[in-house]
């Protein structure tokens, strides 16, 4: 075979992963120990309670789209955290929650999350498994079906949280035309403009992950968010150093970031 077990060319990748993981673990440990970790207010989140309350007052359902990606996507995982909070509130208010899924693996996870949230909210009786269902793996087939749900069921509140592609505008526009209050959030940069223009509140990029931590206050999410913040600080510092050195013609520092 003669293959190397350790590639020195990719040492920087290893260092990056180790530093990042260490920061995450450190802050998760701190959060678990009960240390108060500050997270700034996120505008879109203040509207979640209001949106659920509105659906309750109107006697109409809430539509929750957990994105179109797979379960391994971070955006989907963040969305599931928020779904848990939304489902708990909806259960307490006895408001119907519809969760159409496009991924066959995401669907059972959504069912589990909503079921647990209903239990947590003290209302296991309001859990309706038939409202969390699979539609199709086809992107536009799914969109056509969700558009149909929005037009027919007329949900009072639409949540679009997770990973979205070209379907984002179609979903958000149809939702806006039905008069629903819409809260969106995605880390798909190219889809954000449509959510910003067609939705009432939008969580931009990483705000989606932060929202999941802010809402859940779970040590795991809060610690992760802190770890990410520190990583961003380090990245910012390194980039700044690299820029200053490069300005003086010293490229050796930037070259450390070349991967083999």
């Amino acid at each position, binding site marked *: 075979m003669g293959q190397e077990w350790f590639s020195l060319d990719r040492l920087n990748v290893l260092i990056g992963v180790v530093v990042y993981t260490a920061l995450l673990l450190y802050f998760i440990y701190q959060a678990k120990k009960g240390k108060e970790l500050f997270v700034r207010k996120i505008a879109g989140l203040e509207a979640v309670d209001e949106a659920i309350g509105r659906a309750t007052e109107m006697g109409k359902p809430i539509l929750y789209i957990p994105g179109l990606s797979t379960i391994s996507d971070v955006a989907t995982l963040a969305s599931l955290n928020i779904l848990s909070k939304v489902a708990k509130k909806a259960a307490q208010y006895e408001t119907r929650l519809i969760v159409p899924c496009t991924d066959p693996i995401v669907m059972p996870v959504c069912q589990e999350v909503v079921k647990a949230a209903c239990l947590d909210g003290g209302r296991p009786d309001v859990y309706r498994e038939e409202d969390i269902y699979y539609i199709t*793996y*086809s*992107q*536009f087939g799914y969109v056509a079906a969700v558009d149909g749900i929005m037009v027919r069921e007329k949900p009072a509140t639409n949540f679009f949280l997770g990973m979205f*592609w*070209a379907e984002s505008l179609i979903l958000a526009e149809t939702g806006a035309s039905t008069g629903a209050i819409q809260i969106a959030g995605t880390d798909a*940069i*190219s889809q954000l403009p449509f959510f910003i223009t067609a939705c009432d509140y939008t969580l931009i990029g990483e705000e989606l992950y932060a929202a999941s931590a802010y809402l859940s206050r779970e040590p795991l999410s809060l610690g992760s968010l802190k770890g990410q913040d520190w990583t961003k600080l380090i990245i910012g510092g390194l980039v700044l150093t690299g820029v200053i050195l490069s300005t003086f013609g010293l490229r050796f520092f930037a070259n450390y970031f070349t*991967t083999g």
Partner: protein
Amino acid sequence: MNLEKLMRIDRRLIFLLIALAVIFPLLFPIGLPTHLSKPVQDTFNAVDSIPPDGPPLMLSIDYDPAAMPELYPMTLAILRHCFSRNIRVLVLSLHRAGPGIGEMATTRIAKEYGKKEGEDYVYLGFKPGFGAVILRMGEDIHGAFLTDYYNRPIGEIPMMREIHNYDDIPLVICLSAAAIPELWMMYAGSRYHQTIAAGVTAVSAADYYPFLQTDQLVGLIGGLKGASEYEKLVNELEERLGVDKKRKESLSKEEYEKLQVSHSKASAGMDSQSIAHLVIIAFIVIGNVAYFAQRRRKR
């Protein structure tokens, strides 16, 4: 003019105007010029640098029929580029809805250029698993695809005897409406130093510009506009190589004209694109003027 009325304009009127802006230029072409952009020229140059009858270009058809208006003309133009320069092509699909499109495009252009399946091109078909398939091909393409699209064992295909992994592939072009080019960069680019170019829908084109700056992508074809630029480059190349002249001599006038039209499908749509853009810009301006005027009046 009553601005309140303008703000409440029936959306169906906008749909109608956009439809007219698209239909009229198709019926009465204006022939607006297409300017060449650097990322498209770079993609063209990368393909052009592959030696004839040598290692093949890998073309990954990673889109579904919904993206065909933008990506299918790109697919045809790239295949025409390869076959007119006798560059061999290895076609595959990582998107579940892609295999039918890939076969339709490859067989059509291969037939047009008299290319032989198994010698000048191979169609591997679809394999699910995205990143896992890309990684596996870095080790052994024969392990990732046991047979081609037509169920022929890979080992029995003449062209595949010399092709084992990315060392034998000078360039990969991923045509996708989703984030699949990122997976190619992640697994084939970063891990195996594979040279990669991408053809994407205009929606995702902006996402890929940062990767051009870092050379993680050698070229980028974005949307129908990019497709029309590539089409133009291939048409000019065929004229230079005399392919077009030969075609003119061997076909009837009607057949030749029909083929010319199909070779400029993306370019034909660019007039409609430009006029529709003007209509949309007009609506954006009117909408903003009305919005700000209304806001001022409310104050």
